[in-house]
């Protein structure tokens, strides 16, 4: 059974065709990592899943709900989809505890005591129970991102979307966030992850999807995509990402997406 089912998804901004016919499914408990060059439409794809972007055409199903149906209760669907952003997007005027409880209380209508209990549980899960009283500005980037994960988990989501969760972090803080995500994957959470952390994708992903120019170029188990890529575009991309110091001067002109 799949949790996400995307078929023939198109998305354009004005004249720019960003997604050009995406078919992708994510099964329950699967961890799918999306990789690809900048501007290939990875974020847009993720944002179409919970309708932060309105697709131009095509369908997206989450569980048994078609989110692209104009009559679907989008707030109800979003409640079951956790999302973690590159820029954390914690609520700056609220403490860590309030960040994690506000949607539980206002959306799920949990009591204060219940929301606090679940908040603490999830903050423990990301190793930040002692920061409940702090404000986001008092935390490091890595800590903020872990709070953002706890905030999403407190809503008991069926699946989690991650959009480059470690790209805004100093290198020494990347590990703590990836560790939390690895833990989630091990617990069987369904995850769709856009990432530039190839080591993470190789180790944790059940499947790796390579996108370029608004289409899925290639997908498969990490061992295959990384170890034995079939498509030239995948090879070029991996070469540039995995061995950036060995990119020769003659390659610079050739742009990846045609």
């Amino acid at each position, binding site marked *: 059974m799949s949790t996400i089912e995307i078929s023939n998804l198109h998305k354009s901004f004005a004249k720019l065709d960003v997604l050009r016919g995406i078919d992708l499914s994510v099964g329950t408990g699967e961890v799918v990592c999306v990789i690809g060059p900048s501007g290939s439409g990875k974020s847009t794809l993720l944002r179409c899943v*919970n309708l*932060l972007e309105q697709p131009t055409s095509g369908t997206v199903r989450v569980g048994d709900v078609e989110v692209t149906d104009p009559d679907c209760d989008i*707030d*109800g669907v*979003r*409640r079951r*989809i*956790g*999302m973690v*952003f590159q*820029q954390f*997007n*914690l*609520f*700056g*005027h609220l403490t860590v505890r309030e960040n994690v409880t*506000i*949607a539980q209380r*206002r*959306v*799920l209508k949990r009591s204060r005591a219940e929301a606090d209990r679940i908040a603490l549980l999830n903050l423990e899960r990301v190793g930040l129970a002692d920061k409940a009283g702090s404000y986001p*500005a008092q935390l490091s980037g890595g800590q903020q991102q872990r709070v*953002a994960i706890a*905030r*999403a988990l407190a*809503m008991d989501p069926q699946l989690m979307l991650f959009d480059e969760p470690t790209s805004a972090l100093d290198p020494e803080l990347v590990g703590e966030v990836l560790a939390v995500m690895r833990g989630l994957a091990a617990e069987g959470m369904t995850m769709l992850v856009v990432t530039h952390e190839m080591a993470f994708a190789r180790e944790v992903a059940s499947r790796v999807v390579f996108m370029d120019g608004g289409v899925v170029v290639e997908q498969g188990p990490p061992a295959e995509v990384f170890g034995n890529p079939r498509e030239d575009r995948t090879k070029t991309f991996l070469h540039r990402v995995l061995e950036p110091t060995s990119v020769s001067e003659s390659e610079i002109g050739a742009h990846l997406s045609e």
Partner: protein
Amino acid sequence: MKLTRRRRQRLARSAGYVVFALVILAVVAAADWGTLSEAFFRLDVARSMFPEAITVALRNTVFYTLMAFAFGLALGLVLALMRLSSVLPYRWFATAYIELFRGLPALLVLFMVGYGVPLAFPDREIPGGVYGSVTLGLGITAAAYMAETIRAGIQAVPKGQLEAARTLGMSHTRAMISIILPQAFRIVIPPLTNEIILLTKDTSLVYVLGVTSTTIELTKFAGDALNTRVNPTPLVVAGLLYLVITLPLGQVVRYLERRAARER
């Protein structure tokens, strides 16, 4: 001695100070201090204005300011939300309102409220008498300014905040109330405090509505005293009382702006 860059700077600055001091001295020497203090600083005249200057005039000035501010803030918030709404007629209305009342003198609007509204609705009265008319007359204009300030504050909240809130399943309205507006108001507190200062001064226009001895505010109070005592000392007293309100508010603005700059 060679003229280095530092020496030249020092020389230019000293020359500036000397000229400045000479001008001040010349003005001070030319003024007739005896007559001036006789006119503007007569203690007996000043004393005769109290306690009414504070218990009535200052009190009413503060009261008018707060009422107009409260009304302007509420209406300004509604207008700001309409301006940002996805409903086209709302946007039109808000834009028209803001452009209109930013472009009209506050005095003219006060006149219209004071004389136009009773003519237009002869069977009704603005509730609260003069207090109601002042609240409307000054608040209508203040709302136009505050709407623009609040709109800018809302737009200054990063887009990701709304996205994060919506992603957690909050409706647009809920996200506005719990996430966006609290942060927007933190941003606009300094400019809104400035708006209170401007409103405080605009209450001096209220006399055109015809005020009584109980609804009188500072400027009219001083003007009346000027007439009866045939001495301008009351103007100085009223000026000082205005400063009692506006100077601390100015300090608050500066403090809030400094704090906001530090948090960024």
